């Protein structure tokens, strides 16, 4: 642990180096400094902390990551494999932590819908703050790190009663052109009363050099607003990906969150929703597929702050090779949250003896008139089902891939956006041995 001080010194120096480039007012600079101080004091989380018990950030701590001064050179062609076929969407692309106007497609946005770069928003709006004021509490030293360093991201604002006519595809790319780069990206979705948006939050890694992305996404939900967020994580095999999502939900708002963790060497996702008014509803669905030596950690927390709110949560893990999966789902039902209706389930499918899964579905309940249930299972493919498919002429690998896919399929189908569903299907199948030939079968 002796190297902690120089490690933090490195990031303090890095902050000093880029401070002048960071977007935002002087007030924001002060907020960034305060966040930097908090990060400096806490350092990177370590495995002695309960929330990080199963995920070590040592590989991140060992390196000295630097902020990229500008977007790397990414061609349309390089991005093409990550664009779902037939997806008609607005597109905003962040490359190495900087907005790329060249790759983005933001023409023709309807009235009341703003999609712009987060840096641009910070610069243009005197009231803008790096950290959303609606979401005061963003726990974790990495959220602080992001608040200090955040260079750019996507800013989506829907005015009251507006609807985005097309989904918004937010692509965060690591170009991988340089050694040891980090991207600190902050996305914010402000969905005002009775408006509706669908965002596909896509993470893409292109190079083969180690890099670190630290993401914070904030969703501020007005009354009766609806957000569908589909997160597709396809970082490259040397990418260390840490992402936090914070949703603040007022009356009658709905958040549908879908997560697909496919890439990265290490991916840690924290998904939080705070339901502050009655009749708010949140759905968290996630699929994680660690293969090779990938490590994927999903932490979720639904905070039922008041009465009559609803949460549904299903996570499914498919673990092959030396894959390591972690799931920690927490449902917090506070004292006043009577009539809460919550349900959480997490299932894992272990395909290899070397794979490991650690799950903890937590309930923390302080109100008595509630329905709270959780379930957790770990198992493997049914050999009878494998045999059945084999007897029908499917080879062993293929049979296993089909059955595995059917395990995850229920959650893919929930996205409700066919081009994205097909894209995720194909990406998922191609990760499974023997799956390629059945990519279009499912």
């Amino acid at each position, binding site marked *: 642990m002796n190297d902690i001080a120089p490690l933090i010194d490195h990031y303090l120096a890095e902050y000093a180096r880029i401070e002048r480039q960071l977007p935002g007012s002087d007030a924001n600079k002060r907020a960034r400094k305060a966040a930097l101080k908090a990060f400096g004091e806490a350092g990177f989380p370590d495995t002695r902390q*309960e929330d990080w018990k199963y995920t070590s950030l040592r590989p991140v701590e060992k390196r000295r990551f630097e902020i990229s001064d500008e977007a790397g050179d990414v061609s349309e062609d390089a991005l093409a494999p990550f664009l779902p076929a037939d997806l008609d969407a607005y597109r905003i692309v962040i490359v190495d932590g900087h907005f790329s106007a060249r790759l983005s497609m933001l023409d023709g946005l309807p009235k009341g819908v703003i999609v712009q770069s987060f840096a641009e928003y910070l610069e243009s709006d005197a009231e803008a703050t790096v950290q959303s004021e609606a979401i005061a509490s963003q726990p974790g030293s990495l959220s602080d790190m992001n608040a200090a360093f955040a260079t750019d991201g996507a800013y989506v604002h829907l005015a009251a009663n507006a609807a985005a006519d097309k989904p918004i595809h937010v692509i965060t790319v690591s170009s991988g052109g340089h050694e040891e780069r980090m991207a600190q990206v902050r996305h914010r979705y402000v969905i005002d009363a009775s408006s509706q948006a669908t965002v596909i939050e896509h993470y893409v890694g292109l190079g083969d050099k180690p890099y670190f992305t630290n993401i914070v996404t904030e969703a501020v939900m007005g009354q009766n607003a609806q957000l569908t967020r589909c997160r597709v994580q396809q970082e490259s095999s040397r990418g260390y990906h840490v992402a936090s999502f914070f949703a603040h939900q007022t009356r009658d708002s709905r958040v549908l969150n879908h997560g697909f963790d496919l890439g990265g060497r290490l991916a840690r996702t924290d998904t939080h929703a705070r339901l502050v008014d009655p009749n708010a509803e949140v759905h968290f669905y996630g699929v994680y597929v660690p293969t090779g030596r990938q490590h994927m950690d999903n932490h979720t927390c639904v905070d039922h702050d008041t009465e009559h709110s609803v949460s549904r949560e299903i996570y499914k893990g498919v673990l092959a090779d030396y894959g390591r999966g972690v799931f920690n789902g927490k449902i917090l039902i506070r*004292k006043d949250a*009577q009539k809460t209706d919550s349900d959480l389930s997490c299932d*894992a499918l*272990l*395909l*290899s*003896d*070397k*794979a*490991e*899964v*650690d*799950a*903890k*579905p*937590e*309930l*923390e*309940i*302080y*109100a*008595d*008139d*509630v*329905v*709270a*249930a*959780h*379930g*957790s*299972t*770990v*198992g*493997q493919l049914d050999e009878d089902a494998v045999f059945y498919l084999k007897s029908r002429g499917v080879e062993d690998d293929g049979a296993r891939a089909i059955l595995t896919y059917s395990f995850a399929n229920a959650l893919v189908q929930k996205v409700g956006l066919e081009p994205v569903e097909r894209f995720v299907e194909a990406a998922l199948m191609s990760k499974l041995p023997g799956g390629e030939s059945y990519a279009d079968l499912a």
Partner: protein
Amino acid sequence: MAAHQEDVETLVAEREYEAGFVTDLESDTVAPGLDEDVIRFISAKKDEPEWMLDWRLEAFRQWKQMRTPKWPHLHYKPIDYQAISYYSAPKSAKDKPKSLDEVDPKLLETYEKLGIPLREQEMLAGVEGATYPTSNSNVAVDAVFDSVSVATTFKQKLADAGVIFCSISEAIREHPELVKKYLGSVVPRGDNFFAGLNSAVFTDGSFVYIPKGVKCPMELSTYFRINAENTGQFERTLIIAEPGSHVSYLEGCTAPQRDENQLHAAVVELVAEEDAEIKYSTVQNWYPGDENGNGGIFNFVTKRGDCRGDRSKISWTQVETGSAITWKYPSCVLNGNDSVGEFYSVAVTRGMQQADTGTKMIHVGKNTKSTIIAKGISAARGEQSYRGLVKILPSANNARNFTQCDSLLIGDKCGAHTFPYVETKNSTAKLEHEATTSKIGEDQMFYCQQRGLSEEDAVNLIVNGFCKDVFKELPMEFAVEAQKLLNVTLENAVG
């Protein structure tokens, strides 16, 4: 339930501890504080051999390096370990009584005041009007009064079967080879903060040895009572079941009323060799403190069983209704192939009680199976957590686990929490976990009441049904008591 909630507050406030009384008994107590001299004093007091003293001192050295665990979902003022007296022995126990007739009458009086479970046992044993179980009874009692075991009944009958059932201090003197071999082999000295403390200062406890192929002829039972003020009680229990043997052990607790918090840090170690089976049942009803959370027992217990041999089985059953704070995770390490671990628990918190309890099932051997059934009932301002770990190691092929933890909430100021850890490193493992949290259904209440049951009877009926899966695992003597205990508890908690 609105009417209930009001009643809960008023009635809980009125509740008084059933077994709250102090037996005036002269104690031979050491001054508060803990250092190596105190440990030497305890060791000398108990005529322990040199190796035992060294073992304690090493534990003390390790303990000094440790810190109190912060992870439990419990809130209490830090404990000043130097303000506790670490040794207290009833004076009259100096000359070890040979039979119950020689036991301090005041001690017997204490038991009589408790009424249960001895009365229950008498009843079940068919002893009418008996004041104490005689040889007709089928339960052997090793009474632990404060820290020293003062009477062991049925020694002869057990000795005939080859069973050793005595206090651990006696075992250290009489059977050093067994104690040396097994003590600390399941719960090492440095296992955790409270186990470390216990290893350094444990004063007494029970020792059970069941030889190869022997089915223990009777249920073994022990009492724990905390008596002198400001004394911690540090029990150490060691049960060894040789290949093919079988034993059922009961532990029941109750304590006099106190204003100051009393610390209890026990360690229980179970060793089951090939084909052996150990059933360990606990009913814990220590003083829970008053309605404002003053006083009450702090109960920090480390219980662990090691299924060493193939096809061995360890089963924990617990009914926890007492203590201000309960920190307890009876665990099974399933080392042997085809070994089985079970955990059945009912925990009740009311008033300001807090409980963080659960189990750990560590699957090491092939085809190992574990079952966890945990029922939590939280009333008034009680806080309850289930914290469990199911760990499947790479060697544990075809391991199987089923976990169910249900919570019942009575009143809107209580809390029920669940922290189930599942760690799987083997792809042939099958694990299931289910948890639910709910209150007593209004329709269930309505149904019972319109059939003529009083509100209270209806609650008792529903709660007993809720706990049935666990109670049926208890030996008969305890099942009756546990059910009664629960009714008494709820009688005062729900109008």
